[in-house]
């Protein structure tokens, strides 16, 4: 959705400030309270319905996870992880996986196509498919391994946080469908407050490890989790404990961009000024030389 009415905080492959003058934008956030998640996949179905996505009907490979992974047609999937405590008690750690909508989005940083990835001023990171060239750099840039390239049109896809719904004042489809109230949506400030309250609730219930997942390494996220096992986010099917944009990506899309470009420019200039100061090595005519 290339919404003219929306302010952009960031725009991929764009070195100047994109339109961002309106002041009314409130940063939004989705809060996924894992202590209330029953893994029912209503969010997955709602996502498919709202966004008109139909992944393939797959197979079961010995897991509750289906589709097996995020894809261009599955922008969110439930991850199920089993964990056995030392005393033998079970934990079934269920996590809704999908785009985290980083404040400092690695995908946007890596994207070479101007305007293929935007971050609206409300924090939503959105892929503008018509500008996407399908290079997949966003995948390399993402610290959460979220974007996927479609085998149909070679464009990158991921959760848009239902930017089309949010822009007209609705909550994302998954939030609407969640039966237990595990997924909530509101301003980032409110969601942080609610997340902290829930962490307090859980600690009061004896879950001392509870924590709010809003990783600072990516500037915070506009999708946050309340994790009962906040001490070990990796147990939730590999949720990174301290995600940040990979140093390789930072080098590639950070210092190297201006530095190497300048290097090339200097080389050309160097050659040019060599020519005007020193001139060419002239060639003598064979006959002339041979006469001598």
């Amino acid at each position, binding site marked *: 959705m290339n919404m003219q009415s929306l302010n952009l905080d960031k725009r991929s492959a764009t070195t100047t400030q994109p339109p961002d003058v309106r002041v009314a934008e409130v940063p939004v956030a989705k809060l996924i309270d894992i202590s209330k998640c029953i893994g029912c996949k209503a969010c997955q179905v709602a996502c498919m319905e709202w966004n008109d996505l139909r992944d393939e009907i797959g197979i079961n490979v010995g897991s509750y996870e289906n589709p097996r992974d995020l894809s261009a047609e599955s922008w969110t999937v439930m991850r199920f992880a089993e964990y056995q405590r030392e005393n033998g008690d079970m934990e079934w750690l269920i996590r809704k996986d999908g785009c985290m909508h980083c404040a400092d989005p690695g995908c946007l940083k890596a994207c070479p196509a101007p305007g293929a990835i935007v971050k609206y001023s409300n924090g939503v990171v959105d892929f503008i498919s018509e500008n996407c060239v399908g290079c997949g750099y966003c995948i390399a840039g993402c610290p959460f391994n979220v974007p996927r390239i479609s085998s149909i049109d070679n464009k990158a896809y991921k959760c848009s946080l239902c930017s089309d719904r949010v822009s007209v004042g609705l909550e994302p489809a998954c939030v609407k469908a969640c039966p237990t109230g595990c997924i909530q949506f509101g301003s980032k400030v409110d969601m942080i407050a609610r997340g902290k309250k829930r962490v307090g609730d859980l600690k009061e219930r004896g879950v001392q490890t509870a924590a709010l997942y809003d990783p600072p390494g990516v500037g915070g996220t506009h999708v946050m989790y309340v994790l009962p096992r906040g001490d070990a986010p990796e147990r939730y099917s590999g949720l990174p404990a301290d995600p940040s944009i990979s140093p*390789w990506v930072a*080098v590639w899309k950070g210092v190297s961009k201006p530095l190497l470009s300048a290097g*090339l420019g200097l080389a050309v200039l160097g050659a040019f000024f*060599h020519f005007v100061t020193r001139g*060419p090595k002239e060639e003598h005519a064979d006959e002339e030389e041979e006469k001598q």
Partner: protein
Amino acid sequence: MTATVRVTSKGVPRYSRNERVTHWIVTITFFLLALSGLAFFHPAFWPLTALLGGGVWSRILHPYIGIVMFLAFGLMGLRYWRENIIQPFDREWGKRLPDIINNRDEGLPEIDKYNLGQKQLFWAMVVTMLLLLASGVVLWRDLTAFPVAAIRIAAVVHALAAFVLMLGIIVHVYSAIFWVKGSMRAMTLGTVSRSWARHHHPLWYRRVAGKE
């Protein structure tokens, strides 16, 4: 400066027809790759994607063109690697670099078909081409599927290798077209003047002239 006599039959043959074709294939593909690659590298160069028909076509074609360049350069590599082995007199020649840069070419050590700069460029191209190929394959999502960690490293390697290659080519192009007059015809007509050959590559010239 008097006009040189451009009599082809009297020139010193430097590159055969096949060699010239191969070189120009590499040249053309290199420019397409460099320009489309720059477009992906820095937003300032994005408009260069128009060269290949837009961003998507650039993404699609770039790797295929890269394969062509690699194969063509591979031929050149096989042809020229022996002649690019760096010899002791090359090093001596290299010590006179300030003089060379300032066009004080008198009394330079005699060298063979290629000077040290050309040889260094050759080997730099061999190394960067291999790096570009390897990292390019990793980045080529249309056909390959490497782990994200590998792709991230490959992206950096690809960018750095391309940078080095482009620097080299800038020097190469400047030298061949603008700086060292008489060089260009080696790759257009296939011959150089005896004067040019004697002047810049005396060992080679004597070898070739002797054969004549």
